[in-house]
């Protein structure tokens, strides 16, 4: 432990100015506006030069016409228009409903995957034999391309009589458990040798050492993995929905709007945006829980 405050009062008060949360929100908005500026700037250049790189005859890598790169405000506006001509609901509502559907699958997969990951971590810290034996398979499981596994899981699931969303949950769990296993193991083995010697001097049982020392020490590492898994479980759910034929969910939305890209490209962009938003919100939720559970002095940032 480094010697910090000789004065045992709490750390110095925040600097004057806007609170950090507001400052971060402002930076995010500025970056977002800058990206929109780049997008529109690119389109403007394309319009002026007739879709070629300025001062050359080389065509631009991505066509800047409205068909392939809709204006940013068109993408925003399309969220508030009916999804289908003559339809009732606006696109935003449809996408949000599908996002919720996808999120439920991702959440269940996330919880299952995290529990499995945690238990594997606990198992491996207590048995180096099992760790050496099983870890290669754990790692190998992640190197198989998801796009190959997803249809297989869907087919097996339907053969077993599962509902289609259960297969998607399995895929989310599959992507979640790996970072949680690795980081749980890392965290459980993080206490220094003297801490373990102290526990031995108290004649503590392995169970007590686990729950009083190892697990609390591991929490920052576990939460790092949970934040990663929050986003990957969403990706897994969306990818899992693609071959599954489920009529709901963001996977279906993306497929549909990809099909209609030539006539309405801004809808696909809107769907992509909502998918990313889902991942970000889930990540933010886990980060929020982390802030409740782990005090700032302990976070791995």
């Amino acid at each position, binding site marked *: 432990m480094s010697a910090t405050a000789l004065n045992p009062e709490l750390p110095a008060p925040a600097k004057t100015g806007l609170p950090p949360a507001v400052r971060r929100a402002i930076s995010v908005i500025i970056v977002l506006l800058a990206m929109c500026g780049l997008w529109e700037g690119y389109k403007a250049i394309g319009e002026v030069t007739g879709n070629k790189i300025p001062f050359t005859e080389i065509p631009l890598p991505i066509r800047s016409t409205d068909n392939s790169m809709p204006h940013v405000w068109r993408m925003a506006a399309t969220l508030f228009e009916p999804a289908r001509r003559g339809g009732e609901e606006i696109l935003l509502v449809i996408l949000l409903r599908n996002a919720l559907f996808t999120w439920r699958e991702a959440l269940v997969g996330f919880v299952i995957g995290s529990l499995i990951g945690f238990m594997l971590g606990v198992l491996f810290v207590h048995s180096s034999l099992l760790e050496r034996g099983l870890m290669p398979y754990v790692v190998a499981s992640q190197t198989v391309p998801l796009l190959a596994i997803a249809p297989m899981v869907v087919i097996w699931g339907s053969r077993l009589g599962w509902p289609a969303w259960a297969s998607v949950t399995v895929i989310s769990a599959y992507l979640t458990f790996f970072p949680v296993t690795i980081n749980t193991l890392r965290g459980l083995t993080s206490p220094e040798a003297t801490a373990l010697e*102290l526990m031995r001097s*108290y004649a503590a049982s392995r169970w007590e050492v686990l729950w009083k020392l190892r697990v*609390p*020490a591991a*929490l920052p590492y576990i939460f790092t993995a949970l934040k990663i898994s929050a986003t990957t479980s969403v990706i897994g759910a969306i990818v899992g929905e693609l071959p599954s034929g489920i009529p709901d969910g963001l996977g279906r939305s993306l497929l549909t709007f990809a099909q209609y890209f030539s006539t309405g490209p801004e809808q696909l962009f809107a769907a992509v945006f909502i998918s990313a938003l889902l991942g970000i919100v889930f990540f933010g939720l886990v980060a929020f829980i982390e802030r409740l559970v782990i005090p700032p002095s302990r976070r791995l940032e």
Partner: protein
Amino acid sequence: MIEIMTQPAVSFSSVSKVFNERGDNRVRALEDINFEIQPGEFISLIGPSGCGKSTLLRLVGDLLQPSSGVVTVNGQPAAQARLKREYGMVFQQATLYDWRTVTANVQLPLEIMGWDKAKRAARAQEMLKLVQLEDFHKHYPWQLSGGMQQRVAIARALSFEPSILLMDEPFGALDEMTRERLQLEVLRIWRQTQTTVIFVTHSIPEAVFLSTRVVVMSPRPGRISGVVEVDLPQPRGFETREHPHFFEKITEVRERLRQDEVKVASS
């Protein structure tokens, strides 16, 4: 004066320790240690790096087992003494849990020993008073200085009133002034609680200042090369450092250490 025959607090009988017996880097850390520590003594173990003093300390605590010989603590095998929680330990790093408050840290061994909440809280408060940190019971370790953290570690080590206290260079990471202050604290606590203290250190003045006897160890393989009786008056304090005998004793220990160096150099 009636001499009461008490059993030694700690005794080593032909103890040796070899690391990596069958491996490439076989190390004879300790060889043929025979020594007794009486209850209530303050023993310092001093010697060059690698002489095995920390190993010796861990043999008392059953954190390591001897390769040969027997370590007896309070009349029983060291392992049994550990299971009965008869000693407390303080390391160079305070090793406090930074997710627990100061008082929760002091209560840790009491939780493991199954004390109920009220008893734990009362004892923790008592111990924090002993080390004069009762105002910081709700603080977290990262809010305390190094010296304060060590005091919490000492409070924790003594919370269950063990008869023996093992200290492995506890003040090694602290500055000179904090170290001198904590030396006085340890002596005060030792007098108050009447624990047997085994103290590993690199510092000759520290060893002489604190101890009733100083055990000098030789370079690897560690043997006890000599024991210096420190008959300076008790209780010790600032005046002790000015006492003529103080420098004599320091010289005696230093000579003993130098003789070992010469022996090694000429071998």
